[in-house]
């Protein structure tokens, strides 16, 4: 089956790339000792706090780790709600 797919040239991520991506993701959590579920909790609380003061696009909020060599950052990307810039 996979031979057939390959012969037809259908793109398929290599298992090498998949392994690397999965490792990078799991290690972010390992290194910070924070589970994926905890990230969701942090995200919900950030939304709750900011929403008190500013109208934000809650569906677009993203909280994630970025990793450098051996240093990681927690990054929150919080889009403002539509119409925020068009002061009524």
């Amino acid at each position, binding site marked *: 089956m996979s031979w057939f797919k*390959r*012969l037809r*040239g259908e*793109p*398929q991520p*290599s*298992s*090498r*790339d998949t*392994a*690397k991506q*999965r*490792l*990078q993701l*799991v*290690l972010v959590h*390992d*290194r910070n000792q924070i589970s994926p579920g905890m990230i969701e909790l942090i995200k919900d609380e950030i939304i709750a706090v900011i929403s008190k003061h500013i109208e934000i696009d809650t569906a677009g909020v993203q909280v994630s780790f970025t990793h450098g*060599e*051996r240093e990681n950052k927690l990054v929150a990307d919080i889009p403002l709600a539509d119409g925020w810039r068009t002061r009524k």
Partner: protein
Amino acid sequence: MPARVITITSGKGGVGKTTTTANVAVALALLGKRVVCLDADIGLRNLDVVLGLENRIVYDVVDVIEGRCKLRQAMIKDKRLSELYLLPASQKRDKSAVKPDDLVKICLDLRPDHDFVLIDSAAGIEEGFRTAIAPADEVIIVTNPEVSAVRDADRIVGLVEAAEKGPAKLIVNRLKPELVQRGDALDTSDVLDILAIELIGIVPEDELVLISTNRGTPAALDDKSRAGMSFRNIARRLTGEDVPFESFREEANVFGRFAKFLRGDGRTS
């Protein structure tokens, strides 16, 4: 010059710590270095069989610690190399029989008369690992290019740093160049991206390692073994020589290259 004490560890079991310890020790002795390898995997003794010295053990490291013999009485001289010694683990006792300070003291006694003391650590991150790194000047982490081994190695990198024994150096063991070229295995560069520590060796998968272990004559003694060559290169790097890293590109077989050409998708960049 007093000996450098190097602990070889991995986190995950079965990645080739003992084989690596035995082969690097043999390779260092081939370079004329005075080497002691110390089996710190108490209760699961194996460095003796890999080196082919199992029939000559009278005393072990626990006997030394508990005063039943002198340090020199427990050290087994290698059959082939006059400057290689093994200090075996106890097979009857468990990890608690050896404390970190015990190993520090033994290494203190070994340092003046040798160039290298290689310590084969127990797997895991608990007592056995902590005891094994206590006397270390340097730590080498052995991993395989696969997700569980690399994940555990990452944990060890952090623990070695926390114990102020870092930065550890890395050996990628059992690399399969054919699988890497096909895009079906992590390459050394992937492992290095993730672990971000200094590489000291890449050892390819080689069935001669199993065969040589069957016989109790480490592959580093075999000129025909490509893994043996890699172990000898590691020894040379440890002595400060600048030895380029093996690429193994040409090792991948003709069929593999043909299959890649057929796919023509460049997945294996």
